[in-house]
């Protein structure tokens, strides 16, 4: 492969990986927007979404097949289920904590994450679960670049979800209410906006997006693991920070940027693949220190 081909391939890798990061990062950033919470459990919802998608697909594949159509149905049902799970988590665990000190709600979020992870661990005995589907390995060659159909479907699906979200947020009443709550929840309460409902919808959408990513990733990569949400949760948070936490376009951009940084970062001589995660976390820390508002985030007003 020529250097140009390698770069093109790594760009493609970054795009695919970045799509997953972006979908998960969106939920992070939306939830942070409305209740200012770093939802540590978000990455685990991605994992739960993958498992539910797998269970659904196993149940329906005899009827609809295990191809992209079956996966699409499984993904929708998984989104629905995990969306509700997100709402339930918010109601049970976070809602009573909204007025408590920030430390308490952060620890609660961590506890929720651990409960989800360890439930999956107990159910799977810590083993990997093979996600069987009928996806082929076909693709097209563009010059020196080989793109599989799976990659195309995946990136397109992620793009459609993100466009739909953007439309929802800018063109619907709930979407506008969501943005308003993100700016000033107290004021919204005074204006008669049902803030609790807006928070619920936000959790539903954010969790559903994570589930969509989880199902697609499970099918695309072919395996599921109880701990698979941890790393992507961290990476998605990094993506959200790079894009500017609280900003929806920022999360999309951040996901893609991080995907590309990782793919290209491992090409830098001297930084082998073993340093890839150190590279990502170093980027996270540097962004937080030097540009905490990220690429697209608005600067927060001075304190008080």
């Amino acid at each position: 492969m020529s250097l140009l081909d390698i770069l093109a391939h790594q760009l493609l890798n970054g795009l695919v990986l970045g799509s997953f990061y972006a979908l998960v990062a969106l939920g992070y950033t939306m939830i942070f927007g409305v209740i200012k919470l770093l939802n540590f459990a978000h990455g685990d919802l991605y994992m739960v979404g993958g498992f539910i998608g797998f269970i659904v697909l196993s149940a329906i594949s005899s009827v609809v097949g295990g191809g992209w159509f079956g996966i699409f149905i499984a993904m929708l049902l998984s989104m629905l289920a995990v969306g509700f799970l997100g709402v339930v988590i918010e109601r049970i665990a976070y809602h009573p904590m909204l007025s408590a000190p920030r430390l308490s709600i952060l620890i609660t979020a961590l506890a929720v994450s651990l409960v989800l992870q360890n439930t999956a661990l107990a159910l799977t005995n810590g083993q990997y679960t093979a996600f069987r589907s009928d996806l082929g390995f076909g693709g097209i060659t563009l010059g020196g670049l080989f793109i599989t159909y799976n990659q195309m479907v995946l990136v397109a699906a992620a793009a459609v979800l993100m466009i739909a979200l953007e439309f929802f947020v800018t063109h619907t009443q709930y979407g506008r209410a969501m943005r308003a709550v993100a700016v000033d929840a107290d004021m919204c309460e005074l204006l008669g906006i049902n803030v609790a409902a807006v928070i619920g919808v936000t959790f539903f959408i954010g969790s559903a997006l994570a589930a969509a990513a989880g199902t697609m990733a499970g099918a695309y990569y072919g395996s599921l693991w109880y701990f698979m949400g941890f790393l992507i949760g961290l990476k998605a948070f990094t993506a959200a920070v790079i894009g500017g936490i609280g900003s929806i376009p920022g999360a999309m951009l951040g996901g893609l940027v991080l995907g590309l940084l990782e793919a290209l970062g491992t090409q830098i001589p001297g930084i082998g693949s073993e340093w890839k995660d150190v590279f990502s976390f170093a980027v996270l820390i540097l962004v937080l220190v030097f540009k905490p508002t990220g690429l697209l985030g608005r600067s927060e007003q001075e304190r008080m």
Partner: protein
Amino acid sequence: MATDDRPGAGTTPALARLAGPLAALADNAAARRAGIVALLALMVVAPFVFGEYATVILTNALLYVVLALGLNVVVGYAGLLDLGYAAFFAVGAYTVGILTLRVGVNFWLTLPVAVCTAALAGVIIGGPTLRLRSDYLAIVTLGFGEIVRISARNMSITGMASGLSGIHQPWLFGWHIATPRDFYYLFCVLAILAVAVSVRLADSRLGRAWLYVRYDEDAAEAMGIDRVRVKLAAYVTGAIFGALGGVFFAVNLGAISPESFSFTQSVLILMAVILGGMGKIPGVILGAMIVILGPELLRSLGELRLLVFAVGLLLIMLFRPSGIWPGRGRQQ
């Protein structure tokens, strides 16, 4: 643990909760003293009564007492969520490993180096991030924890993924600390020192400043408290506790590897702090005991061990945020 007889002090509520290991008995100094003496006596005879296996487990529990008390300064006193505490534990352990094995330094001389290295790491990580909103610290420390673990895995000086083994057991004034019982007593001393330091820190200008910043950053700042500096002091103090724990962990086990310093390790230490009751020294000790002795007593739990802890953590946060140890909640 002298009783407070200075003017204007009395047994003030927050201090009382922080200070005495038996704060519940704060009103009765004699009962408290008797309790402490009984506890110390039990510590001395435990290895003879319970046998070697129990000694090893108790040694591990005492290590967790030290680590949890250190993290308690960060989380319980200053209210900062640190999810990468194992990183400092690793700094201490690797400092000993590298200096004794690769450089040939005497074990006791590595102690100050470990302390300085941990403090420096604390300043480098804490300095910039403690200026930001406190939530960010959680995620930055998580990232830092992973960076330390992965770096240890990839560098030849840290023995890569296999880690370092053959770390020599130290001598102390002619006493070769070698058997599990020797280490048990060493860790007893360490834990007692950690408790004493925690008590003194809590009842001091700095200890109060941590609480001020934790309860109301703005008001604290308006009272002339430099919040970044005070938080940094907590973070670095915690780092030093962690590193000292790591130093003795390394000589006790004789071998260290990156997987001992994983995220799960950080979470277990955090659980010890929260389950027992953050900010309350006896609570933290209880938490460390639960986290270590619990799984040993309930071996049959097996796979469910962490799930049980996780559910416990969630229930504690929802229904009793002040932790298991009695004492009024700090949350509301």
